[in-house]
């Protein structure tokens, strides 16, 4: 029986590495983590499915973030949106 610590550790590794292939994901570990930390009952099979999608999206996001020199306050998005209002090609 895998210990709780192992489950968390394995999930941490998954989250860090963004493992994408479903066969590499331990559904039991993900299911146990979801129960422990999200108070949610999810079967290991389902946990494996959602982890496959989530970890791929996490990886894409991490890679995009690392491609930036730095990241700013998310609230600045709204200023950018307004500054670009009806942006003209000849502006």
């Amino acid at each position, binding site marked *: 029986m895998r210990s709780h610590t192992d489950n968390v550790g394995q999930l941490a590794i998954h989250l860090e590495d963004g493992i994408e292939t479903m066969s590499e994901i331990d559904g039991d570990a*993900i299911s146990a983590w979801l129960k422990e930390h999200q108070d949610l009952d*999810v079967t290991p099979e389902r946990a494996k499915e959602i982890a496959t999608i989530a970890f791929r999206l*996490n990886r894409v996001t991490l890679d995009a973030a690392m491609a930036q020199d730095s990241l*700013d306050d998310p609230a600045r998005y709204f200023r*950018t*949106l*307004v500054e*670009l209002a*009806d*942006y003209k090609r000849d502006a």
Partner: protein
Amino acid sequence: MSLPLADLTLAQAGDSVRRRDVSSVALTEATLDRAEAVQPALNCFLRIDREAALQAADHADTEIAGGNWRGPLHGVPLAHKDVFDREGHVATAGTILFETPATSRATVMERFDEAGAIYTGALNLDEFAAGGTGANDHYGRTHNPWNTDHISGGSSGGSAACVAARAAFGALGGDAGGSVRIPAAMCGIVGLKPTFGRVSRAGTAPRTFSVDCTGPMTRTAEDCALMLQAIAGHDPRDTTCPDVLVPDYAAALRTDLKGVRIGVAVGSPFDQVEPEIGQRLTDASDAFRDLGAELIELEVPDVMRFNDLQQILGKTEAAVICGKWMRERPGDMTFAAISVVQEGLLMPATRYLEAKSLRGPLLDSHIREIYGQVDVLFAPALAGPTPTIAETDFGDQDRVEELFTRSARFTRFTNYLGTPSLSVPCGFSASGLPVGFQLHGPPFGEARLLAAAHAYQSVTDHHTRAPALS
């Protein structure tokens, strides 16, 4: 009046009421009769408010007769996706979890009421607006009016089917990833996802916090402009709704496109459409060229990455919004609604904040790169013909999601960026189901999208065809 009342466009109906060629009561009765006639086949309504609608219509007639005409929506019947608060009613959001009637009114409902529009009822949707097929196990699915064996698309499927079936002159939907534009394309109507913050979401049941947009669904671009005019603009009740000038959308409509540069999106993912869809898109782009527009083929970088970042925001926020219900009343939620948000529980706060922090700089570079070259971007709305219900009813929700994603990869990226997109009908597939394209633009550039779509509709007749419902 040569046309049956329900066949008028919203603009024609409003003008007829203004000129008192037809009363709002007669118009509303005709619309309600049509709604009740198509409801058994389409199941697009969750509630029809006949009595209240007729009272409001009578009041509108009295006001107009007294010289108090409020504008082009005065006396015109509209119905809306069931996510907007109105006092005394439960905005169900397609769930059975909400039981307390609203005690206030959504800003968009207030603004339509101030414009004198007639509210006729609440429209069906996927549970929690978390789906793309129009299926709802609690209230029954919405059917496509062009062929009831086919899906309506979703999540604003009730809105799309209702408008296409002439059971309302316009409807509001909500779009967090394509939920206005995809059902609009599948049902053959115009659907607008406005700029994030262009339309207030105060009093609107949220699907997400960062990517939701409320938008009009109509038969014509002109009608869409009239609806948007009534609801666009700053709202102190919605902190994401900035004080940016609202142009006169109807005045900006045009019938030629001389001097307009239209970028035709090429490359991945936009080339991943089935041949018969591709042919309709080619026909549409040819029409734009004939209208005087200059067409420029354009690769649009990073669309798939933007789509993924939209999923990070959408799934994380939806998991928060639905979290209480998923944990406390999972038996009252369908797997269809739960399954598309569960991934959000495995996304760390760092990834979520990275996706949010990236949004400003990626928007800035996208706008300067694309709209530094063209005025409007032309792209597909659907990857293939609208599926049958049987093709989406195979019990595997992830496969349904995958099917939806075929088209959502054309729509989600503008939810991440927050830019406006308009879905416009452009013909029919071999199976007789509508096909659509999208026009994308820079933030708060809705007027140029509507202008281009209006010009297109001035030389085509796809939007005038009506489904053969009894």
